[in-house]
């Protein structure tokens, strides 16, 4: 009798808690974000939002919905639905008045929700992702459910860490149960592929299987996190976000030396650089504290390559300013997408259509980036120069000299030798007679030609430093002050080659227009090309005997073509830019000037942060930023589970997907920021140590029906390998893979005629030796023609930041793994090992299967393989010439090896081989 009462109460409590979860029952207030905002987005915001404010009515900002529209009536009167114009218009029967105009009418339920919401006071709320991230309480497993023994008490045993508590809570709500732990071989393959991008070795699998200690799995995880391959795997992910490529993009898509940035990312991941620091270095490495030479640390400058991955347009006739602006816009959009999971692009032309971010905010944000010195010039300046050998010695001599004679000048001179800034790019010259500024960012002038360099500050200038090239003999370039026939302040005899000249100028304080004039009577039709000019203080120590030599060293160092990579360099003083709003996104129509600031919607900019990119970077990774922690944690989660806790990893705004486990996401984000101090390794360890992650990935009828996409994670992830992993795995399992790290990108074999670049003689030169077998992350990436098997397996072109690779399953992928020589070579190599290891075909085939899947082969599968092996063997014995055709990589030519190669080709194409299970 007593027992019965208890059970009765228990059931009531359970029912109640279920109902409360679904919302709205038992007198709960209407929730703006989950109930009202979706209705507004669906029916109203298209015309009354950020793009259009029909009838001067908008529901984008709180104040707007409370202000009268054109009609003088107020859309929302708090506490009084009947007095609210919005409700009147929705209910109206007059087709001219009824809302939504020409749209699907609202349902009774939707109208009810809106009315209740207004009557309850029309509470406005920030979208969930714009609210500060608070650490939620971890759900207890000692709840009413297992108190009454109604559910499996195994939950407590199953759960390994906090993640599992959050997941269990949702699973129960959805009436789903967890799956058992995956077997050890599956688990180690999964976690190896996830953490390092490579399958485990056979030894690693057997060690794990035989390790009976309690922390056997944790040991594996720790080992993987320490491996060098770890950095390479996560760099693959980061490269899509950073839109990394080895070419400039656009039509001509010529080469660009950017691999040092890629190596920086690999190293950063491997040393587990805190993610906030990783962020600051990439966004503002040039502004971080300088080294003893007064120059940014080399690694920090290389890190700024992140935003030099924007494209450069070298096509004739294009306006450098237009494409400089396009690059700035891309930097803003990419920064927002990568760290804030927000698509900012729409704000370029108008206020955000659905989220309360005003149009101006876009340009305030762009103002942080707009001072970067890059101007879409052909040579991609500014670039960090790497001097070697004799050039390096020259640079050192110049540095020593300055240290000795005027240390105050050291920073400027060193800076100019390393990044050649500041300088005036020739496309900023104003055109004069017999001259041209077209094609690719240089100014060309011939006999009797001239040009004007506007408003140069000559206060501290003793020299003009200029990059000139010509075939004209005896050409003389004169610099005039203020007018074309003004006083000559410098006269340069132009050498007949491509060089940097340094010439003294007469002293003139203040800002002046400088006119260039050229006389070239001997070869009047030959052009003299100028790429850039700089006005500098002379090197110190003029009266010293070796002065001429030092000046020559300086000029030679500047002239020499060195290895270099594009970097971000902040323009200061005359080289800083003003930022304006572009009216409706058109860069040619400039509106009001704006100062750098961050959108009010998110956290305010702390006063102590500098008002530049460095301040912005710190703001992004500040604890108060509501998006960064969530967005970044979600990215890593998505990589492991194939689906983010917010599915739209690129969009956390109100048009993105709702989080499936918001509490879990917030818990992970807070732990990541506060407890783990932005350690990615710790974050990944927490995730992979959860029981949730370690579940086996088998599905069944119930799971397929209730949760076909595994949203609630009632089983482990089962996801096709990424483009890089498909390749790397084939190379690794067959033993071909090279573990060589870093350096210029490599060119493994690809079919002919993939590269067809107009205007450049660049071609795909197949790498030899180990470079042929390196991991996919090192493959040369040409934006207009990426490595074909990569794109077939869904890699993007990297013209723009891409957060997610939407996985496809196409016949073209089958053709790659069936017929691409990379996979045939792997098959032959694998067959060789199989042959060595087994005496009978059964043994050999089982061995091959094990090398790829780490599982024993089932009898029925073995039978299928045996059959194909026998068929192939018969064929190759009958037609020995086919043996020589199929076996092209190794020395052995036997029908048996050929038949095993065919069998290995089959195995490399199996679903459980190309899938992470």
């Amino acid at each position, binding site marked *: 009798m007593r027992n019965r009462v208890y059970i009765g109460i228990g059931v009531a409590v359970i029912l109640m808690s279920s109902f409360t979860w679904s919302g709205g029952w038992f007198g709960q207030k209407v929730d703006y974000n989950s109930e009202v905002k979706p209705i507004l987005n669906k029916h109203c915001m298209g015309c009354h939002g950020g793009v259009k404010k029909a009838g001067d009515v908008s529901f984008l900002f709180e104040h707007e919905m409370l202000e009268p529209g054109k009609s003088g009536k107020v859309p929302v009167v708090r506490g009084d639905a009947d007095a609210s114009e919005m409700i009147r218009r929705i209910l109206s029967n007059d087709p001219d008045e009824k809302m939504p105009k020409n749209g699907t009418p609202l349902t009774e339920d939707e109208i009810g929700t809106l009315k209740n919401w207004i009557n309850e006071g029309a509470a406005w709320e920030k979208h969930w992702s714009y609210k500060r991230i608070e650490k939620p309480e971890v759900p207890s497993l000692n709840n009413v459910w297992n108190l009454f023994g109604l559910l499996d008490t195994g939950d407590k045993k199953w759960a390994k860490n906090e993640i599992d508590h959050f997941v269990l809570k949702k699973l129960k709500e959805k009436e789903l149960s967890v799956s058992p732990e995956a077997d050890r071989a599956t688990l180690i393959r999964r976690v190896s592929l996830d953490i390092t991008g490579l399958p485990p070795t056979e030894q690693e699998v057997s060690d794990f299987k035989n390790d009976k200690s309690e922390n056997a799995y944790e040991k594996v995880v720790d080992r993987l996190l320490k491996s060098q391959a770890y950095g390479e795997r996560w760099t693959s992910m980061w490269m899509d976000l950073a839109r990394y490529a080895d070419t400039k993009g656009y039509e001509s898509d010529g080469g660009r030396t950017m691999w040092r940035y890629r190596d920086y990312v690999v190293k950063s991941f491997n040393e587990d650089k805190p993610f906030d620091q990783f962020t600051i270095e990439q966004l503002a490495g040039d502004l971080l504290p300088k080294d003893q030479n007064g120059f940014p640390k080399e690694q920090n400058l290389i890190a700024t390559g992140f935003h030099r991955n924007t494209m450069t347009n070298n096509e004739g006739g294009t306006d450098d300013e237009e494409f400089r602006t396009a690059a700035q816009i891309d930097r803003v959009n990419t920064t927002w997408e990568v760290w804030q999971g927000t698509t900012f692009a729409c704000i370029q032309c108008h206020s955000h259509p659905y989220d309360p971010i005003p149009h101006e905010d876009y340009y305030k944000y762009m103002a942080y980036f707009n001072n970067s010195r890059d101007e879409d010039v052909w040579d991609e300046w500014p670039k960090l120069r790497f001097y070697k050998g004799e050039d390096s010695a020259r640079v050192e001599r110049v540095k020593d000299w300055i240290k000795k004679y005027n240390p105050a000048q050291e920073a400027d001179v060193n800076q100019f030798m390393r990044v050649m800034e500041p300088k005036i790019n020739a496309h900023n010259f104003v055109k004069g007679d017999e001259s041209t500024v077209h094609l690719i960012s240089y100014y060309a002038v011939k006999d009797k030609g001239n040009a004007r360099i506007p408003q140069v500050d000559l206060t501290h200038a003793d020299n003009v430093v200029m990059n000139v090239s010509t075939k004209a003999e005896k050409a003389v370039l004169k610099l005039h002050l203020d007018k074309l026939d003004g006083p000559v302040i410098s006269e340069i005899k132009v050498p007949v080659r491509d060089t940097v000249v340094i010439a003294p100028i007469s002293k003139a304080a203040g800002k002046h227009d400088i006119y260039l004039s050229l006389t070239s009577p001997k070869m009047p039709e030959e052009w003299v090309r100028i790429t850039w000019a700089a006005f500098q203080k002379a090197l110190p120590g003029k009266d010293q005997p070796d002065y001429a030599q030092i000046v020559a060293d300086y000029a030679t160092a500047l002239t020499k073509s060195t290895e270099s990579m594009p970097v971000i360099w902040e323009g200061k003083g005359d080289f800083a830019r003003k930022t304006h709003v572009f009216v409706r996104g058109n860069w040619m129509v400039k509106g009001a000037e704006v100062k750098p600031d961050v959108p009010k919607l998110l956290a305010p900019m702390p006063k102590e942060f500098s008002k530049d990119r460095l301040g912005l970077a710190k703001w992004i990774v500040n604890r108060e930023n509501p998006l960064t922690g969530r967005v970044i944690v979600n990215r890593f989660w998505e990589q492991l589970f194939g689906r983010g806790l917010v599915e739209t990893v690129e969009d956390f705004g109100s*048009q993105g997907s709702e989080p499936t486990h918001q509490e879990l996401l917030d818990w992970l984000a807070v732990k990541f920021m506060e407890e783990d101090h932005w350690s990615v390794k710790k974050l990944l360890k927490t995730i992979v140590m959860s029981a949730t992650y370690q579940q086996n990935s088998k599905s069944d009828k119930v799971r397929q029906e209730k949760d076909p996409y595994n949203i609630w994670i009632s089983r482990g992830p089962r996801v096709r390998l990424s483009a890089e992993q498909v390749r790397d795995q084939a190379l690794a399992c067959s033993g071909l893979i090279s573990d060589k790290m870093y350096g210029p990108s490599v060119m493994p074999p690809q079919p002919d005629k993939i590269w067809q670049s107009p205007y450049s003689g660049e071609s795909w030169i197949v790498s030899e030796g180990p470079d042929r077998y390196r991991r996919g992350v090192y493959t040369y990436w040409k*934006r207009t023609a990426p490595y074909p098997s990569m794109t*077939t397996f869904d890699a993007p072109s990297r013209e723009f930041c891409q957060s997610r690779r939407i996985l496809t399953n*196409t016949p073209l992928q089958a053709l790659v793994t*069936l017929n691409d020589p990379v996979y045939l070579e792997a098959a032959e190599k694998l067959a060789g090992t199989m042959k060595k290891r087994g005496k009978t075909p059964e043994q050999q085939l089982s061995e091959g299967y094990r090398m790829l899947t780490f599982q024993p082969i089932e009898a029925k599968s073995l039978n299928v393989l045996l059959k194909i092996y026998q068929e192939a063997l018969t064929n190759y014995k009958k037609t020995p010439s086919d043996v020589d055709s*199929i*076996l092209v990589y190794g020395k052995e030519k036997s029908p048996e090896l050929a038949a095993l190669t065919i069998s290995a080709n089959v195995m490399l194409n199996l679903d459980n081989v190309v899938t992470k299970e």
Partner: protein
Amino acid sequence: MEKLLKELQHADLQRQTRRHFLQSCGFGLGALGLGSLLSSCGDSTAGTDISAENILAKIPQFAPKAKRVIYIHMAGAPSQLELFDYKPELVKYHGKDCPAEFLEGKKFAFIQGVPKMLGPQGKFAQYGQSGAWMSDYVPYLQTVADEITFVKSMHTDQFNHAPAQLLLHTGSARLGRPSLGAWAVYGLGSENKNLPGFIVLASGGRQPDAGKSVYGSGFLPSVYQGVQCRTGGDPVLYVTDPSGMNRNMRKQTIEAINEINRQTYEDVQDPEILTRISQYEMAFRMQMSVPEVMDVSKEPQFILDMYGVKPGEGTFAMNCLLARKLVENDVRFVQLFDWGWDGHGTSAGDNVEGGLRNKCQLSDKPIAALIQDLKMRGLLEETLIVWGAEFGRTPMQENRNGLVMPYMGRDHHLDAFTMWMAGGGVKKGYSHGETDELGYYGVKDRVHVHDLQATILHLMGFDHEKFTYPFQGRNFRLTDTEGKVVKQVIA
């Protein structure tokens, strides 16, 4: 609908953000095709009621006049003033300085200072009952004049090849948008289970300037991207088995793969495996059907002669014949690109006298043959042929670097150019729009590239304003925020 497509669609559906599909309810296709889905609109948790069947319903918004498209793009942009846009006034201006009003505030790729006007180099006459003006550059096309609708008042926003090509094919000069062909296959699906729905053929030795993006799928799922069939090497990458592996053995290997995959499916119940099985079957069929459809050796001699092709050639003429074979096999969208039409006048190859004549000689006959051949087979009615380029050319002679050029050339021109269409629901023997007396600017019925796109979509049965795809929080469409259907060209 074909089973294979269902499978493809099903696979696709698995990967795509379901939300996109859910959101597409109420827009365009969704509203018509996804009846049972409507109930789940806005409910981000419902998922089980989406069946492949529903997504598959590829019903256009209204009856299409063009079921298939062959889009012929002359990359580099031929001169309309030498071919179709007859300007007798320009003859008088030949060699004179360009009027200042043409240069005011304008930007050109190469023209500097004040260029000279360049008279038309072709001999023009009227052809067919419609009296279409054409030059002696295109003698074969003259014979099918009455099948064609000319649009002489085309204009665009971009004066460089790559962005102009992107604008024309994807509706945006920036990268990342789906191409016309991808939209077509996304909207109408594919009707041949052995071949991709969108096939690209390129000739002239180079790819289009804007690369693969001009036939990419942008933010649409990658199954909709154009598959380039190459005329040298494998027609589709890796479609050929390695030597030493005969057809029978390939068949057996694929059967073995699928058999073991089926066993895996029984164990793990992941529907993705079923998709993979069907894709391997498709791959095998493509290995047969692609080389077969790309092989013209079985075509009768008179057909080969009509196009002017010899088996084994990778020419534009060959691609025209292949285009016919592909549409005959129900490929939805065939995109031809031919490189080498950029007549600046810098060399013997790229000018509007000899160079353009040579390019026309190589393409005029096969294009006319394609129209006739499709007509003969009763395919022209439902196949839309579009011919044109990314922009036109200036009535002025190019003077690169302010110099006199060695050959007669014209610079890129965005304010006026000619395109033509035939078959697939357009008027026969009609000319739309006019340019001024020098052919510089459209003066009557100007047609922007977005208008052209809207018109092509209309012919395929879609309202371009309602045919959208949600991406990054916005509903995107091919025509961006512009475009009006040119009703006058529709039969």
